[in-house]
């Protein structure tokens, strides 16, 4: 017993050293460091890659290279070190005093301003990173969308503690509703005829459309919310599973939506800024909700419904709001998803999708906004990075998840609140 603790303390010790070394680095510095790194990559990435023996910039932090061309591993590692890790760390550490100063000034301003500045830098990082390659772009969009999806499922499965299997259904509702809106109104298309409106104002219409899309999903959520008054747990899981299958079957039967063939021809409106803004807004709203007492009522209902009722919590209202709210964002995510793929069909929204979101939620951590972000990002990155392994990937990812479940049954980062103030504050 003593031995294990002493061996375990060694890596923790060095990690602790690293942590302490960077203790005075505020978030802004990290973001700016990343910005420097991506800009540097744009400027000299290609020549750097070539001088390290690679034909082009490694897109996924070298992962694809590691798995496909072992001979290039040293090059890829060197690239990641020189182009990603070092610029970030050096900028962050050296610039820390300056960034702390800026942070301090920002911190005195209203939170909105501070947050917007950080987000703007973050967006710039994303933009430059993804701009290098279209593959990065599509991955990034998918990743952002899965954050929204995961977080919305976490509202039900984590915060309210139900095992809901209805998310593919909500997502399908959103994906189809949004497609119907854009394809029907803005696109010349065989199914719905010529465009009724011009797409000049996509920036306005698309978010608006997504809002209605979300409402459609939210209405669909009533099918599950109402039975949830009387039943919980396993039975509700089945009700929600049935919901998913019903939605899928309805879509297969609706000829005017393309039936099993699906619907294509969505305009290319899920641009990076659009996805970024909507996802950030969604995360902000969900975070607001779960930190309010009204949102905490979900936890109360989960942990002890009787006690919640006895403490004046309106459990029915709480459940309805939770389901509709989660469905709303799942629907929005579905709408974005449909416009990234520019194609939807019913079989996308089946058991496989369910397993995927469930994995993201439980991997990342229940009852935690952080957790959902970590879960969505790591599972989608892993899924993409391990693609070259083909079948082996489907052993590695499940094994990883099993290990996480065994050692952290509630996920990597569970029951941890997202504290914006703490995050944005200067550190020295």
């Amino acid at each position: 017993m003593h031995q294990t603790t002493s061996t375990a303390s060694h890596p923790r010790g060095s990690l602790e050293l690293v942590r302490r070394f960077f203790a005075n680095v505020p978030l802004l510095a990290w973001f700016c460091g990343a910005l420097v790194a991506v800009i540097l990559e744009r400027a000299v990435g290609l020549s750097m890659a070539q001088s390290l023996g690679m034909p082009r910039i490694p897109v996924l932090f070298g992962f694809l290279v590691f798995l496909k061309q072992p001979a290039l591993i040293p090059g890829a590692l060197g690239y990641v070190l020189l182009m990603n890790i070092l610029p970030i760390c050096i900028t962050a550490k050296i610039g820390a005093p300056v960034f702390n100063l800026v942070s301090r000034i920002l911190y005195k301003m209203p939170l909105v301003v501070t947050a917007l500045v950080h987000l703007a830098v973050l967006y710039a990082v994303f933009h430059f990173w993804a701009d290098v390659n279209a593959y990065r772009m599509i991955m990034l969009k998918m990743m952002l969308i899965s954050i929204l999806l995961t977080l919305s499922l976490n509202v039900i499965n984590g915060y309210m503690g139900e095992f809901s299997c209805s998310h593919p259904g909500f997502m399908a509702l959103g994906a189809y509703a949004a497609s119907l809106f854009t394809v029907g109104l803005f696109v010349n298309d065989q199914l719905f005829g010529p465009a009724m409106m011009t797409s000049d104002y996509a920036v306005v219409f698309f978010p608006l459309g997504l809002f209605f899309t979300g409402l459609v999903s939210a209405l669909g959520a009533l099918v599950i919310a109402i039975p949830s008054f009387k039943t919980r747990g396993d039975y509700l899981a089945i009700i929600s599973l049935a919901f998913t299958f019903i939605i899928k079957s309805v879509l297969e039967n609706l000829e005017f939506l393309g039936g099993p063939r699906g619907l294509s021809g969505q305009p290319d409106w899920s641009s990076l800024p659009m996805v970024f803004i909507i996802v950030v807004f969604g995360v902000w709203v969900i975070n607001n909700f779960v930190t309010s007492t009204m949102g905490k009522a979900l936890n109360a209902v989960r942990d002890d419904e009787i006690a919640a009722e006895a403490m004046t919590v309106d459990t029915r209202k709480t459940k309805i709001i939770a389901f509709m709210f989660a469905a709303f964002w799942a629907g929005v995510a579905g709408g974005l998803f449909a416009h990234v793929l520019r194609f939807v069909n019913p079989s996308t929204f089946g058991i496989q999708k369910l397993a995927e979101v469930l994995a993201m939620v439980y991997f990342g951590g229940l009852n935690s906004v952080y957790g959902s972000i970590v879960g969505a990002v790591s599972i989608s990155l892993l899924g993409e990075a391990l693609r070259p392994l083909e079948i082996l990937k489907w052993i590695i990812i499940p094994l990883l998840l099993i290990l996480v479940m065994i050692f952290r049954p509630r996920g990597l980062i569970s029951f941890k609140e997202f504290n914006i103030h703490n995050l944005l504050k200067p550190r020295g």
Partner: protein
Amino acid sequence: MPLLEVSNMSHNFGGLRAVNEYNLAIEPGQIVGLIGPNGAGKTTVFNLITGIYRPTEGRIVFNGQDVTGHAPNRIASLGLARTFQEMRLWRHMTVLEHVKMACYSKFTYGLAGAFLQTPKRIREEAEVEELAFASLKMFGVEQFASHWPTDLPYGAARRVEMARAAVTKPKLLFLDEPTVGMTPEEMLAMIEVVRKMHETLKPAVFLIEHRLKVVSELCHRVQTLVFGQVIAEGTPEEIQNNPKVIEAYLGEEKVVA
């Protein structure tokens, strides 16, 4: 007019008549005790009045309003708070959040406030937080505000439960065996806590206890329930000397402490 009036309430579990023709009237500010052997139906009476079970027969009027068969949260928002025999704290909420949660019906910021950081929400959350702290202080557990209930000592957890019930300044407070599992010392402290709370907030209290010491120290009036039926009602002294009570509950020799 009594604050709470229960008339002819009965309840069956399947074939078992757990509560039979039960009557009760509590005046504002009064402390009423309910004693009786295990399985007499005391907790069931609580659950019936607070709306967790719906009575098979009978009528419950609280604060002039018929609440028979109403949902628990509606009854609670009218000003009836309670604690539970086995503590029912929420596992993954901090102590402060527990107490804030009990003010759920006080929030008026609506969905807009829940989703967006409206000024109204920020103000209301802050107000309630203050209330919550005050309540925690009254029960002497404010130092645990950011703890999770699983980290609390037993006595503190019981007090948190009471702080949670009392934060809304209820008109009527139900306490189900507040001193169960306590050492005599802790029990005495608890009696003081309840007394102090009663002096400040002046709620009516309805209290289940097995410890006669608690009952006789606190209660103005005591009911004895046996097999779902009230067999005696009166002041603590009367009850302790009532032969029926002695036979069914106390045992032949008097147990005082």
